[in-house]
C-alpha cells in the first residue's frame, strides 16, 4: 500500500521500479473498473436500471410499434415533441441510453461468466473438502454412540453416501461428501444462454425485415416478393435484399363469417384465405389456407393474414365520355363494422381533374340522431358508398409523393348543389350518378375484397428460442439442485464409537436438518441390503 500512495502523490522522484507511474495507474484503474463492472452489485443495479428504462416505452407511443399513433401524439404535443425526440423517447428500445444499459449488462455478464467457467472447470474434478475439526459447531449436526468399530461405520457411511450420488472421499477418521455440482453448471448455462438469446434477437432486428401489403382478392391480382411491391417495408439496418426469397402468390378466395347472435354478435371469425403460391419463379404451383394463427412459411419467410376490407370498383367518366378512372379502390376500415374511408383520383379527366373522397358502408343505415350514414354489419348486405366531389388541381403533377388514401384539397373546390349544399354521391352497386356542369359521371360497378398480408423474415429466431429453452433448463438446474456437503466422523470413545454427522447447505435456500436425519437413520440401519 505504501507503494500506491507514493505513486499517486505528485512526487517527481522516479519510482523504485522502472515503470512509469501513469501506466500502472491506468492499468489499475482498468482493473478497478473491470472489477466494478463484473461485480454482482453492478449486475443487480444494471438489471434494475434496465427495468426502469423499459417503462417510458410502454407509455409514450413508439415509432417502431405504431408510427401513426406516434405522429398523432406528436401533433398533439408540439412542445414536448422536440425534447422527447432528442431523448429518443419515441424509439426507446433502440435509443443509445437503452442500448448502453443492456450492452453494459452483457459486458458485465460475460465478465462474470468467463472467470466462473474457468473456476468451475478446475473445480470439476475436485475432491470434497476434508471434515472440519469440530463437526458439532455446524448448525445442522447429530451425534450418537454405537458399539462397532469406527472403520465399519465409515465404510457404511461411504456406501450410503455413494448410493445417494454424493462424491465421496474417505479420510483417516472421517468421510467427506459433496453433491449438487450441477447447480453451478445450471447457473452458468443460464447466463450463457441469456447471451445466446440476445444474439438471436439482435440478428432478427439487424438482418431481418417486416413488410405489409394490401392485396386484392382474386387470381387476377398477385404479389411477388421484392421490396417495391410492399406498401410498407421495414428492413433491419444490415438487411440485404438479395436474401429475400423469390416467391409469388395470389389470393384465390377469401371467406369469413360473423357471429349472428350473442354478446359478440357482429364480430367476425373464421377468416381463411386460399393462396396459390410458387416458392420460386419457375417452381410448381401450390395452395395453402392462410388463417389467423396459421402463417404460411416459405423458406425462412413467413406470410400472415392480419387484416381485411372492401374495395369498391369505381368508374369515373369525364366530360368527353372517356373512362378517366376504373379500378377496385381500397377503402380502409375505421371500425368493427368495416365502415371504411377511401379516395378516388382521376388526374387525367377533362375538362377538369376529379377527386372523390368518402365512406363505404357494407350494410348501410341512416341515423336520425347524427344525421349521417353508418354501417350496421361488416357483411355487405346493403353496401353503399357516399362521396364528395372535388375538382381542380389534385396536386399530382409536382412529383411530390402522395398517399393514395388522402386527397390534397389545397387547390381544389368542392362540388356544390344549386342551393349551396355539398354535392354528395350515394351509390349502390350498379348505380351511376351524372355530375353537374358536364363534368362526367361516377359508377359503382361492383364490390371486391382485399387482404392485408404481413410478410416477415426473422433470422435468428430459432437461435433465440433455443437460447430461452436452454436458459430455462439451466435455470431449473440452478434453482432446484441443492448443493450440499456432508461429513461423517467416527472415532473410538470409551468402549463405544462416537459418530458425528453434519451437513451444510451451500445454496442458502435449503433445509439440511432433514438430510442429517435421513443420513443418521440410514447409518443406524443394519447393512443387510449390502450383499
Amino acid at each position, binding site marked *: 500500500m505504501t507503494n500506491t500512495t507514493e505513486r499517486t502523490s505528485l512526487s517527481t522522484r522516479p519510482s523504485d521500479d522502472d515503470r512509469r507511474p501513469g501506466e500502472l495507474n491506468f492499468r489499475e484503474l482498468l482493473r478497478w473498473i473491470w472489477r466494478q463492472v463484473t461485480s454482482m452489485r453492478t449486475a443487480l443495479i444494471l438489471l434494475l436500471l434496465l427495468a426502469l428504462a423499459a417503462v417510458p416505452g410502454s407509455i409514450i407511443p413508439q415509432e417502431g410499434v405504431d408510427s401513426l399513433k406516434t405522429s398523432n401524439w406528436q401533433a398533439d404535443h408540439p412542445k414536448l415533441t422536440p425534447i422527447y425526440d432528442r431523448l429518443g423517447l419515441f424509439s426507446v428500445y433502440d435509443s443509445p441510453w437503452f442500448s448502453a444499459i443492456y450492452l453494459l449488462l452483457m459486458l458485465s455478464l460475460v465478465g462474470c461468466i468467463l472467470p466462473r467457467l474457468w473456476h468451475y472447470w478446475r473445480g470439476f474434478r475436485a475432491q470434497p473438502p476434508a471434515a472440519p475439526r469440530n463437526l458439532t459447531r455446524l448448525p445442522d449436526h447429530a451425534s450418537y454412540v454405537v458399539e462397532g468399530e469406527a472403520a465399519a461405520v465409515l465404510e457404511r457411511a461411504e456406501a450410503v453416501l455413494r448410493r445417494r450420488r454424493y462424491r465421496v472421499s474417505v479420510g483417516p477418521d472421517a468421510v467427506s461428501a459433496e453433491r449438487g455440482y450441477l447447480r453451478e453448471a445450471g447457473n452458468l448455462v443460464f447466463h450463457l444462454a441469456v447471451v445466446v438469446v440476445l444474439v438471436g434477437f439482435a440478428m432478427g432486428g439487424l438482418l431481418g425485415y417486416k413488410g405489409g401489403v394490401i392485396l386484392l382478392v382474386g387470381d387476377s391480382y398477385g404479389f411477388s416478393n421484392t421490396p417495391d411491391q410492399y406498401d410498407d417495408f421495414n428492413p433491419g439496418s444490415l438487411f440485404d435484399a438479395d436474401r429475400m426469397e423469390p416467391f409469388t402468390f395470389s389470393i384465390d378466395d377469401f371467406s369469413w363469417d360473423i357471429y349472428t347472435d350473442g354478446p359478440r354478435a357482429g*364480430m367476425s*371469425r373464421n377468416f381463411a384465405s386460399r393462396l396459390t403460391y410458387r416458392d420460386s419463379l419457375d417452381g410448381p404451383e401450390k395452395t395453402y389456407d392462410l388463417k389467423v394463427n396459421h402463417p404460411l412459411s416459405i423458406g425462412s419467410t413467413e406470410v400472415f393474414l392480419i*387484416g381485411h376490407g372492401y374495395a369498391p370498383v369505381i368508374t369515373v367518366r369525364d366530360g368527353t365520355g372517356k373512362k378517366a378512372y376504373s379500378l377496385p379502390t381500397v377503402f380502409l376500415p*375505421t371500425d368493427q363494422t368495416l365502415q*371504411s374511408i377511401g379516395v378516388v383520383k382521376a388526374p387525367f379527366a377533362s375538362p377538369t381533374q376529379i377527386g372523390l373522397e368518402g365512406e363505404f358502408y357494407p350494410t348501410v343505415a341512416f341515423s336520425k340522431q347524427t344525421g349521417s350514414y353508418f354501417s350496421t354489419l361488416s357483411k355487405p348486405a346493403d353496401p353503399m358508398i357516399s362521396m364528395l366531389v372535388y375538382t381542380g388541381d389534385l396536386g399530382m403533377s409536382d412529383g411530390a409523393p402522395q398517399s393514395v388514401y388522402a386527397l390534397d384539397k389545397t387547390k381544389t373546390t368542392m362540388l356544390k348543389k344549386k342551393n349551396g349544399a355539398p354535392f354528395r354521391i350515394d351509390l349502390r352497386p350498379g348505380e351511376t350518378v351524372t355530375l353537374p356542369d358536364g363534368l362526367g359521371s361516377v359508377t359503382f360497378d361492383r364490390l371486391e375484397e382485399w387482404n392485408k398480408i404481413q410478410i416477415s423474415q426473422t433470422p435468428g429466431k430459432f437461435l433465440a428460442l433455443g437460447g430461452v429453452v436452454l436458459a430455462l433448463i439451466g435455470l431449473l438446474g440452478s434453482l432446484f439442485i441443492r448443493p450440499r456437503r456432508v461429513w461423517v466422523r467416527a472415532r473410538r470413545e470409551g468402549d463405544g464409537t462416537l459418530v458425528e454427522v453434519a451437513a451444510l447447505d451451500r445454496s442458502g435456500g435449503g*433445509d439440511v436438518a432433514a438430510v442429517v436425519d435421513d443420513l443418521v437413520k440410514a447409518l443406524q440401519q443394519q447393512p443387510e441390503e449390502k450383499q
Partner: protein
Amino acid sequence: MTDVQWESLSNWAVAACGVVYFLALLVHLAEWASLRKVPVAAGGAAVASVDIPGGVAVMTGPEGEQDGQVRRTEFLGRLGYLLTVLAVAVHLVSLVGRGMAANPDRVPWGNMYEFTLTGTFVVAALYVALYQRFRLAWMAPIVVAFVLSVLMVAVIWLYSPVAPLTEALSSYWLVIHVVSAIIATGAFTLGGITSALYLVKERATPRESGYVARLPKPEVLDRVSYRLHAFGFPVWTFAVLITGPIWAHQAWSSYWNWDPKEVWAFITWVVYAAYLHARTTAGWKGRNAAILALVGVATLWFNFIGINYFSTTSQHSYAGGAPALVTGESALTDSTAP
C-alpha cells in the same frame, strides 16, 4: 345443460365461494383473536415451536386453562383451512361453468373478469396445495382476505357476460401461455405476501402475543418466500419468454413487438431476476431483496390490470374491444381509427 344454465351456475358458484371464503376469513380471525390470550413466549416449548418453519406457535404449557384455549385455536385453524378448501372447490366450479357457457366451449380466459377469477383461484389453490409442505398456517388470514377482496373487485367492476374469444385468442398456445402466466402470478403473489410479512416481522419489536409475534422467524419467512419465487420464476420465464413469443409470432408475425403488455412482463421478469441476485448479494439480502419482491408483485399486477387503462396500443385484444382481424400493428387499420 344449456349455455345459459352454465353461465348462471358460474355466477352462482362465484357468489357461493365468496361466502365460504368470507366464513373462512371469520374463522381465521377468531383463531388469531383467541390466540392473543395465549402468550407466545410462555414456556420453552412455545419458543421452540416458533422455529418450526411456518408453524403457528402453539404452546403446550402446564396451565389447564391455556390448554383449552390452545385446543380451541387449533380447531378453528383446521376449520378455517377446511372452509378454504371447500371455497376453492366451489371456485373451480365457477371457472368450469364459465368455460362451458361459451359456445364453442373454451378455456375461461377471454376477458379481465375471467382472468381475475382464474388468478384468484390459482392463488388460493396454490396456498391450499402448499399448506402442508411449507407450513403456511400463519398465512391463512392474509391469503383468504386477499382472495376475497380481489374476487369482489372482479365481480363489481370487471364482470362481463360470457362471450366467444376473438380469433387471435383461440389458439392452443393461449392455453399454455395463460396457464403458466397465471400459475406464476399465483406463486409470485404468495411470495409477495410472504415478503411483506418478512418486512413487518423484521421491524417488529418482540412482543408477547399477537399476529406478528406468531409469524415464523424472518429467516424462515425469507426462505419460504425464496422457494415460492424460485417456483414462480421459471414458470414465468416459460410463459412470457417462450410461449408468449411463440404465440405472438403466430398471431402477429413477430415474436417480440415491444407491446406494453410484453414490456411490462419483461420488466417483471427483470425485477425478479434482480430479486434472485439480491438474495445472494451482501448488503441486499434480506430487507432489500424483500422490497424487490414487492416491486415485482407491483409490476405484475400493474401489468395485469393497470396497463389496460394506461395504454391503448396494446394488441392484447382482451384488454379492449379491438376488432378481431383489424387488430395487430398494421399501421393501416390503426391509421383509420377515428
